[in-house]
C-alpha cells in the first residue's frame, strides 16, 4: 500500500506540492499529466531517490519518508531503461536479485532470455525497456514504479509485456504506480488514475471517472474532451439531499439542459465526442433533452472512427461516430443533421 500525505519535493526550480493519495495494495495506479506536471518527480519521491521536502510517504503502513531507497522495497523503471552499459544484459538482470532461478523464469516470461548474451549497447529501446523491467522485478519488491515503461516497445511487444506484467501483478499482489501518456493504456491497466498538473494532484479516481468527469476544464482538455464550453449555470430544480439538481448551462447562443451538483454561476461544460449522437431526423432522439439542428463543417475519418465537426448556432460541436454511421448518414460538409446530447452526458465543472 502507498499512502502519500501532503507530499512535497523539489526538482531544481520545479516543486511537487501537497500530494495526498492512498493506493491500496494490489492496485495499478496510473499517473497522467502533461509534460512538467510532476509525474516523474512523484515516482522518484516515492522511491526515495528524491528527498521529500514536505509531507510523508507511507509504504505498507510504515513511514519511509526518511528511509533510503535501498530500504524501501520499491523498484523504478525509467523510460530510457538505464541499463548499466558496462555490464552484460545478464549481469543487469541479476544486479539486485538474490534468486537466480527466479530471474531466469522472469526473463523467459517477458522474453528477455533471448537477450542475455547481447551487449547492452546493441539493444533497441524496446529491448532495453524489457530488460529494465525484469531487472526491477527480480529483487521481488512489492511496489513497482514505472515511468512510461512501454513507450519504446513495438505494438506486439507492448501487448505481450503489458499482459504478462498484469498477470504477474495479480499473482503477486504488486502495487504499481505507472506514468503514461497513453490514455488507452490508462483505461486498460489502471484501477486508479491520478491526474497531475503543475506539481499538484488535481484529481484521482477510476480512469472512467477521470475521463467522464474531469475536475477542471484544463483536466478535460488534457484528457482529450472534444467539447469544452465556458458559460454560466442556472439551477432550475433543486435535487434532494443525495440527488443532483436540474440545471441549465448557457454559453452564448448555446443552451444545454444538464444535471449535476454545481453551484450556479460561471462554469465549464464538458461533452465527449462519443456522447454526441447524430441523425437526419429530429424525432430520432425522443429522450434526449438537448437536440440541435446543425450543419456539418468537416468530417475526418481515422480508421473506423470519424470525427465530425458541426456548427450549432455558430458554436462548434464535435461528435465522434463510427465511419460506418458517417457513411450511413451521408455526412459531408454542408449537410444538415440533428445532434443530440443527453443531459446526463454533460459534465459541468
Amino acid at each position: 500500500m502507498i499512502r502519500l500525505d501532503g507530499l512535497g519535493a523539489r526538482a531544481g526550480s520545479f516543486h511537487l506540492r501537497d500530494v495526498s493519495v492512498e493506493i491500496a495494495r494490489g492496485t495499478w495506479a496510473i499517473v497522467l499529466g502533461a509534460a512538467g506536471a510532476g509525474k516523474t518527480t512523484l515516482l522518484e519521491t516515492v522511491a526515495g531517490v528524491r528527498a521529500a521536502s514536505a509531507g510523508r510517504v507511507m509504504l505498507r503502513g510504515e513511514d519511509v519518508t526518511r528511509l533510503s531507497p535501498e530500504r524501501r522495497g520499491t523498484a523504478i523503471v525509467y523510460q530510457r531503461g538505464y541499463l548499466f552499459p558496462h555490464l552484460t544484459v545478464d549481469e543487469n538482470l541479476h544486479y539486485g536479485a538474490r534468486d537466480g532461478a527466479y530471474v531466469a523464469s522472469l526473463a523467459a516470461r517477458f522474453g528477455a532470455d533471448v537477450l542475455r548474451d547481447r551487449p547492452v549497447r546493441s539493444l533497441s529501446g524496446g529491448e532495453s525497456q524489457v530488460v529494465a523491467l525484469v531487472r526491477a522485478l527480480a529483487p521481488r519488491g512489492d511496489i513497482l514504479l514505472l515511468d512510461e515503461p512501454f513507450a519504446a516497445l513495438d505494438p506486439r511487444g507492448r501487448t505481450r509485456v503489458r499482459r504478462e506484467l498484469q498477470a504477474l501483478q495479480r499473482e503477486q499482489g504488486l502495487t504499481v504506480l505507472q506514468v503514461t501518456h497513453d490514455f488507452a493504456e490508462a483505461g486498460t491497466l489502471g484501477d486508479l488514475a491520478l491526474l497531475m498538473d503543475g506539481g499538484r494532484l488535481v484529481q484521482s479516481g477510476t480512469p472512467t471517472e477521470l475521463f467522464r468527469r474531469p475536475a477542471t476544464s484544463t483536466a478535460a482538455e488534457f484528457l482529450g474532451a472534444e467539447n469544452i464550453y465556458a458559460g454560466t449555470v442556472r439551477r432550475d430544480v433543486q435535487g434532494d439531499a443525495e440527488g443532483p439538481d436540474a440545471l441549465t448551462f448557457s454559453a452564448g447562443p448555446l443552451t444545454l439542459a444538464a444535471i449535476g451538483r454545481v453551484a450556479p454561476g460561471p462554469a465549464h461544460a464538458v461533452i465527449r465526442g462519443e456522447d454526441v449522437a447524430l441523425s437526419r431526423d429530429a424525432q430520432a432522439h425522443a429522450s434526449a433533452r438537448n437536440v440541435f439542428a446543425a450543419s456539418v463543417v468537416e468530417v475526418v475519418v481515422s480508421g473506423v472512427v470519424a470525427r465530425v465537426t458541426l456548427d450549432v448556432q455558430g458554436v462548434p460541436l464535435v461528435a465522434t461516430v463510427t465511419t460506418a454511421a458517417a457513411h450511413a448518414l451521408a455526412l459531408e460538409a454542408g449537410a444538415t443533421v440533428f445532434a443530440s446530447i443527453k443531459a446526463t452526458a454533460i459534465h459541468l465543472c
Partner: protein
Amino acid sequence: MTAAARHARAGHRVAVAAAAGGAMVLLVLLLVPVLLLVARGGATGLRQLGSDAELASSLLLTSACATAATLLMVTLGTPLAWVLARSESRVAGGLSALLELPLLIPHPVAGIALLLAFGRASPAGSALAAAGLSIVGSPLGIGLAMLFVAGPLYLSAAREAISRVDRRYEQVARTLGDSPSRAAWRVTRPLAGRGLLAAAVVMWARAVSEFGAIVILTYNPKVASVLSYDRFTAYGLDAALPVAAVLVLLALVPMLVLRSLRALPLLDGVERS
C-alpha cells in the same frame, strides 16, 4: 549562381582561411618550441641517462613523487569529487571553487604558502618534525608541492567526469539495493572510468613539470625541472637542454598511454551511454 550565393561562398572561404591561419599561428606558438627542444636535446638526454647519475636520479625522484601525489589525490579526491558532483547545495558549489584556488596562485607563491603552513615554524611543521619528517629539502615537500599545484586539476576533472554520468544510473542501483557508496563504486566509477583516468594522467603530467612551488620548498634533492634550471644558470643553455628535453619526453609518456587505453572497448565512450 546568384550574387548572394557568390557572396556567401566568398565569405565562407574567408572564414576557412582565417581559421586555418589561426591554427597555423597556434601550432607555431605551442608546438615549435617543444619540438625544437626535443629535437636539439632529446637524443643527447636519452644517451646521458646511462652516464649522468644526477639526471637519472632526478627523473626517478620526479616520477616517484608525482606518482605518489597522484595516487594520494585519486584515493582521497575521488570520493570528494563524487560528493561535489552529486551535491546540489550551494556549499558544495562554494567548496568546489575554493578547492580550485591553488590553480590561480602563482606557483612560487604556492610554495611560500606551503612553507608558511607546513614549514618548521608552523604548528603542523613542528608536529611533522617531531615525527622525523620535514617538507623542506625532502621528497615529502616535493610531493606536497605537486599535490597542491596539480591536485585541483584532478579534482576538477574528476568532478566533471562523474557529473557526466547520469545520476539516474545510481538511483536505479539504489532501488535495486545498493547503498550510496556501493552504487558509486559499482556503477559510477566504471562509467566515469575514462574521465577519472584522464584526470589522473593530466595531474601526473602537471606534477612532473612543476617547478615554482618545489624550488621554494626543496631545491635539493633536485627534481628534473629544478635540475634543468640549475644547469641552465650554472652552465648555460646547452647543458640544460638534455635535461629539459628528457623531462618533456617523460611528460609525454602518460599521454601516449592514455591514447592507447582509449582504444580499449571497455573505456571507449562509456560515459556517453
